[in-house]
């Protein structure tokens, strides 16, 4: 392994990590506020990418990448809130909302996937690189497009972190997550907050989809593998803190890049899952989770 190969692997890992961090944070946002796991998140990624393609691509409306991305992110926010009202809200006070939402979000994922298939067909598409050319950072050659994708991911994550910590709406979101009833008694509109959390999560999925579509390619199933990785990341990192899944995302991204090099594309998911199980057995709250038993 030469130094150059290592650098290449590292770069690939960082790009993967940034994407996983976006997706995992979206998942974790819904998981922490609503206490459910959204299986449609992967399909949100694909739908976000296709909406952006439809608006942006010269094969379709040709309005350009920026307009396409904006429409996609806002559109996915609205679709996310709609999915919440249709598939989650009816069970909001049911004690087995976790199980019911698994069924409804899986169903929602399948329906949306088929709609994408009908609308855009199963063949691969590309959003195309936004930036062309390479830049040099400490002697490494990086494609501008990938560097921008990483930078955008990090910026959005930072903004989200500040929003949750400082903004009244963000604080209210954390409060609802921790004690729904107490939050209600404090005048917080719980249903609206849940809808906003779901919408934000879908908007994050759209951004991830757009980035994937721009540095790789897209198809109706493009979200399912990232969804699984994001799930690993969320469990791996724990959700006690906002930053947990982000660190974990980069670890998983780098691990995956090295594994792909070391054992090949075929075996790397297996190795990843083995590592995840070992971590979970040793530390059930996740790598960065603190135990929550103390009162």
């Amino acid at each position: 392994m030469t130094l150059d190969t290592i650098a290449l692997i590292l770069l690939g890992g960082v790009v993967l990590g940034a994407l996983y961090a976006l997706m995992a944070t979206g998942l974790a946002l819904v998981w922490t506020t609503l206490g459910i796991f959204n299986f449609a998140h992967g399909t949100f990624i694909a739908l976000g990418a296709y909406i952006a393609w439809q608006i942006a691509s010269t094969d379709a409306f040709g309005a350009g990448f920026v307009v396409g991305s904006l429409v996609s992110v806002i559109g996915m926010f609205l679709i996310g809130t709609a999915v919440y009202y249709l598939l989650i809200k009816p069970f909001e006070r049911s004690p087995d909302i976790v199980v019911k939402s698994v069924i409804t979000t899986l169903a929602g994922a399948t329906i949306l996937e088929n709609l994408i298939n009908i609308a855009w067909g199963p063949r691969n598409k590309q959003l195309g690189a936004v930036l062309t050319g390479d830049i040099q950072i400490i002697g490494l050659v990086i494609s501008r497009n990938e560097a921008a994708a990483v930078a955008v991911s990090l910026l959005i994550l930072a903004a989200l972190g500040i929003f949750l910590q400082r903004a009244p709406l963000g604080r209210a979101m954390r409060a609802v997550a921790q004690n729904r009833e107490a939050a209600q008694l404090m005048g917080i509109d719980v249903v609206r907050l849940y809808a906003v959390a779901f919408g934000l999560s879908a908007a994050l999925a759209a951004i991830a989809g757009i980035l994937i579509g721009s540095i790789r390619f897209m198809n109706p199933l493009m979200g399912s593998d990232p969804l699984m990785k994001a799930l690993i990341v969320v469990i791996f990192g724990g959700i006690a803190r906002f930053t947990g899944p982000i660190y974990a995302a980069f670890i998983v991204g780098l691990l995956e890049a090295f594994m792909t090099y070391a054992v090949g594309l075929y075996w790397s998911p297996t190795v990843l899952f083995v590592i995840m199980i070992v971590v979970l057995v040793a530390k059930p709250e996740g790598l960065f989770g603190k135990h929550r038993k103390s009162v």
Partner: protein
Amino acid sequence: MTQPLLLDVRGLDGGYEPLQIFRKIDLQLAQGGAVGLFGPNGHGKTTFLRTLSGIIDPWDGNIFFEGVQLNRPGPRGSRRWRNFNYDAVTRRRMDAKAVARAGLIHVPQGNLLFPDMTVAETLSIAPYASSGRASASERLDYVFHLFPRVKERRTSKIRFLSGGERQMVAIGVGLMAAPKLLILDEPTLGLSPKLRGELSEAILTIRQSGVPLIVVDQDIAFLESLIDVLYLFDHGRISRRIEKADMPTHEEIMKLMFGEDHQ
């Protein structure tokens, strides 16, 4: 024109479907007044208060707050619909958020608040309920003045607080919301005698500053120092309404509630 009552509860029925917990509750509270609820464990006081604040829907009856009806008027949906998913097919009859924003603030029994938020963050959420009735920084000064302990612990997470400290924060949160009526459900439950004394005193100070109260407590002497009217709550009904002037002793109340031959 006479001033409307602050709170006027008429023939309120409610419970946890299919189990009715309380029935035909009438409760009136004049502007500036304070009432106490007293009754044995498990007879539905908390359930009644949760209905007042809109956490659960009333089955029947009406709730007026400053002359404004808080519940959706009209009868509850027909029995047939109750077999279906309440949250999908039924419109809620009460809205907890709207109740809180109207100024009816409920400090629930054994409030756990938000375990992973700091005291200061928790207090900072309250302006949602006060909806412009008061300046947050003034309210905060008042809470810190009333509970110096809360000020000391403002950077701690709620889950690291003692039960008494958490109760102080819970009441502080209620005060931050600039209550027009503050409901305290067993505020001194499970505290040491010393803390109980401290908290009782703070509640008395709140009362003396003119905040109307509904207080549930098992300590008649404490209630007596606080309220104008005592309601005895018995098997989900109000069995008696007692003015402060004829407040009975603890023994007499026990007799009233459990009959002559109760030990």
